[in-house]
């Protein structure tokens, strides 16, 4: 058993595809129309054969209240590993990304939390002492 995909629930798949590729820098892997919605996944440029992130529609009626409650308390829906949180923060802020938490040193990790514009907060995390 392998974890080959994980998902983030987005309010608009096309907007999400633009944000996750053009702004965050992931690569489109699959974009398969399935009726009203599509099966859209992106991967990291650093690991194109690695875990896929599914940009899943948040169409279920329970999804939006759940997402809203997470955002209200600043809780990230998911998180990504980066080599340098501060560098990513500078790069993304310059691209107009809004952060609810700037890079914060928490001892073994440095984290920051950004708004994905699709109804989610996303944490980026750098483990200290990692290459």
């Amino acid at each position, binding site marked *: 058993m392998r974890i080959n995909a994980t998902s983030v629930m987005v309010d608009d798949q096309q907007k999400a595809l633009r944000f996750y590729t053009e702004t965050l820098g992931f690569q489109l892997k699959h974009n398969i129309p399935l009726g009203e919605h599509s099966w859209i996944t992106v991967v990291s440029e650093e690991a194109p054969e690695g875990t896929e992130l599914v940009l899943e529609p948040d169409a279920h009626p329970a999804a939006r209240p759940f997402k809203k409650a997470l*955002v*209200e308390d600043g*809780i990230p829906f998911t998180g990504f590993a980066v080599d340098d949180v501060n560098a990513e923060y500078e790069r993304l802020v310059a691209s107009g990304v809004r952060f*609810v*938490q*700037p890079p*914060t040193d928490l001892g073994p990790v440095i*984290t920051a*939390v950004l*708004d994905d514009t699709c109804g989610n907060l996303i944490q980026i995390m750098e483990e200290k002492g990692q290459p």
Partner: protein
Amino acid sequence: MDIYRAIADPTRRAILDELVDRSGQTLFELCARLIMKHGIGSSRQAISQHLDVLEAAGLIRTRREGRSKLHWFEGAPLKGIGERWPISTDQDKSQDRNASPDPHSSHSTDEDIEQ
């Protein structure tokens, strides 16, 4: 809620410390800082209740930014403490030193009272 009860709790004092370190934090960020920097592993719900107490005492303010609720430290209520018990002047301090050269002696007096 009076401020003395609000700041009597060590977790609430740690919350204020972290909000002084950075203004405008979400509940998530505060909880992360409390567990990682202070070893305080209370639930989000418990921290949320501490925040309610601090807000009722006027020691924090909240504001929405986008769809997130952010928290700020508000020091104004603490002003009353310094006015009620003015901080001693340098002259007072030197008199204190003359009266008790051992800085620990006053502490042991406190312990005597508690016993």
